[in-house]
């Protein structure tokens, strides 16, 4: 049985989305309304179980009367709003944001982004060959997961997941500012010197592959990572009695990584180190 938390009932408000009347619970994210109306609004920093940080600015829409564009992921629906999701102004901002991102970090493992770059006609190359890039070596400082900040779009999801929204460990935060801002543990130390408990919840939410399983990282390096050849099977973790759901990603009869379904009412995608990383014993066959 799936228990869906009901929350306090909210009144429905009416507003228009690209001219069509729609109804949504007051204060619910415009992005939800867009999606239920079948509009394909791109989003990167928004996550299904975290409070949106609205930092990437890729989901912006036009709200009549607002001086600037507004992030659909975090602006709540209000009575009588007039929202436009696909105007020239909106498309312009999305295109530039995609160009700025793609010219400064490596988006090769970010799902869907290649399609958006094409759809919006973004040309990240036009800032010239010397355009500033993040350009950092991946940090391989433990056997469980790798931090490759060259791919990090600073969406803050891992920080929120490690902090007060999921894990309550607070091992990582944003340090520095501006273009030099990076996700880091204190004093930019190796992960092994930090408070990290290797729950892997940050990997679970990372939208870009900047955080990845060591297994995935090594297989990519060896050229053997092949998502199309993988199966995903959801099962129950056998370690303790909580009953967390695990999704085992299997390639060539080997577990290559473990994720957790976000719609599970017990865990919402959270796991502990054992459920997330403790799968080797399954495949020690002799």
């Amino acid at each position, binding site marked *: 049985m799936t228990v869906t938390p009901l929350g306090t009932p909210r009144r429905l408000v009416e507003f228009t989305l690209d001219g069509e009347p729609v109804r949504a619970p007051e204060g619910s994210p415009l992005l939800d309304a867009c999606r239920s109306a079948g509009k394909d609004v791109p989003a990167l920093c928004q996550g299904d179980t975290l409070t949106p*940080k*609205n*930092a*990437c*600015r*890729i989901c*912006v829409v036009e709200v009549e009367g607002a001086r*600037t*564009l507004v*992030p659909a992921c*975090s602006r*709540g629906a209000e009575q009588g709003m007039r929202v436009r999701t696909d105007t020239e*102004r909106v498309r*312009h*901002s999305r295109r*530039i*944001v995609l160009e*700025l*991102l793609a*010219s*400064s970090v490596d988006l090769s493992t970010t799902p869907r982004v290649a399609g958006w770059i094409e759809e919006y006609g973004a040309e990240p190359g*036009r*800032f*010239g060959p*010397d*355009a*500033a890039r993040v350009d950092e070596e991946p940090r391989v400082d433990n056997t469980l997961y790798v931090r490759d900040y060259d791919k990090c*779009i*600073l969406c*803050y999801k891992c920080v929120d997941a490690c*902090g007060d929204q999921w894990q*309550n*460990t*607070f*091992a*990582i*935060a*944003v*340090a*520095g*500012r*501006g*273009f*030099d*801002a990076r996700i*880091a*543990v*204190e*004093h*930019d130390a190796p992960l092994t*010197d*930090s*408070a990290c*408990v290797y729950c892997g919840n940050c990997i679970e939410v990372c939208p870009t592959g900047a955080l990845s399983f060591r297994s995935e990282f090594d297989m990519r390096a060896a050229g053997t990572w092949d998502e199309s050849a993988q199966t995903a099977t959801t099962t129950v973790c056998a370690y303790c009695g909580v009953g967390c759901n695990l999704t085992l990603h299997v390639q060539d009869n080997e577990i290559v990584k473990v994720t957790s379904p976000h719609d599970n009412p017990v865990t919402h995608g959270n796991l502990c180190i054992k459920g997330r990383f403790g799968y080797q014993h399954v495949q020690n066959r002799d």
Partner: protein
Amino acid sequence: MDLHFGDSKPSDEERAAVDALLGPPESSWEGADRSDADLRWARGGREARARRDLLLPGLHAVNDRVGWISEGALAYLCRRLTVPPAEAYGVATFYAMFSVKPRPATVLHVCTDLACLAAGAPELCEGVESRLGPGSGVSVQRGPCLGLCERAPAALAIRAGDPVRTAVAAPATVERAVLAASAPGSAAGEPPAERALPQAGDPSLILLRRVGVVDPADLDDYRAHGGYTALRRAFALGPAGVVREVTESGLVGRGGAAFPTGRKWQATASRPETPHYLVCNADESEPGTFKDRVLMEGDPYALVEAMTVAGYATGAHQGYLYLRGEYPRALRRMEHAIGRARARGLLGDDVLGQGYAFDIEIRRGAGAYVCGEETALFNSIEGHRGEPRTKPPFPVEKGLFGRPTAENNVETLVNVLPVLTMGAEAYAAIGTAGSTGPKLYCVSGSVERPGVWELPFGATLRELLERAGVREGLRAVLLGGAAGGFVRPDELDVPLTFEGTREAGTTLGSGVVMAFDDTVPLPRLLLRIAAFFRDESCGQCVPCRVGTVRQEEALHRIAERTGAAAAHDVALLREVGRAMRDASICGLGQTAWNAVESAIDRLGVYA
């Protein structure tokens, strides 16, 4: 929370600095020696976490005493406040005045911003750097505007220790700057605040009338010059009466956004949640702005009184004065004034015997322009990174500590005093129908009499510049600071009002007027503005974090080019600028392209 503090230990010096702020630790849970009692109870949880807002003062305490923040010091501070070290590190590395790497005890901040750039800052820096080589024990830091533009070029020396010593050299020569850095305790004092007022003594002054007339240290002198009559009137009117008076005066915020003050106060006062807070934004970091500094240095009690009035009107019992970290003299004077007012019953549990409780706490910024954005300022006070929050919700609903908060800058608050002493009607009669009251302008650059000027709204830019003695060969005027825009010498008849500047396609912003003659190459100014925004971006949102970098790169590429050779990059600038304006979270990113755009369109800089 399972916090992990590592095993690095603070030095005695660092421990003492933190303990001086927080008192000695009570148990081993927060860093004291272990006793038997510690085995039976755990300290922490909600009570300790509620002190998170002491993180910024704690970082200042260590940085002031030692000059930088070591791993051991950070770990100890985190233990005392139950703050996760990763987050505290994120906060410490956010601010320009802190260092998490060892550095000499003395730091000399040399301004390389616009007015100083025009007054020879590059030569100053080179001279200072060659005199103060690596072995000198001084770290020279080139940085943004120090708010001393009327005396450009400027330098500020800070020597860590107990007590921390500061010295200002402005106008700075190589000798003076070196002297300030090598002996901050005995360097020549600063000129009195009123030296920044070319109109000092003019009886028609309203906001500045006491600067240079009263003794800024003497509360009785302040009262003898009309001090505290506004607060008495406020008590006579009652909170709703004060809000009504302020609304009818037509007073709007002077920080740049021009929001009606009465409406903001009304919205805060009417919120059912408690407590309410009053925050005074004294984080004046807009390049070219120094009026708040002069007001705080020259008439500190006026700000104390104005904050009390505002607190009373909005139902707040606690006010925070968020003061720019680069203003040591303003800090000393405000600390003194608040202490005196408290001792005399003008702050505290029973202000003026009227049964109203109000007190003011000073919080020092630590070098971050973005903290002038109101929600970033709240985050900064709360001990988080000074990153702006998304609005809505607006501060009047959910501001400081998530409570209804009225936030005003210094100039706005000081205007409340004449509103109450003159009455709304007389106040509203000053200026124009759309922009009421007197206005302060920070005039610097190529003028004979730079400084803070007070004129009623409606005077033209030409009148202001003529009074300030604009020099021959005027090439451009930057109005509103780095977030504002340039106007041409043939546009000087623009009336200085919110509606007049808007009509002329520019903005009054925070009241900055920087005049540049043709000896300063414009592309160089634009590069400095671009570098400023790239440096000051908090990094939260993509359009600003990357856009400001791309803007600076494009300007570097164009440098001295014009016409067809520049056309491609100018087009690129426009496209990126439009997205920054449209899609950035806060005003910093939204305005980062204003000045460059105006230089292209109005001055034809790359044409």
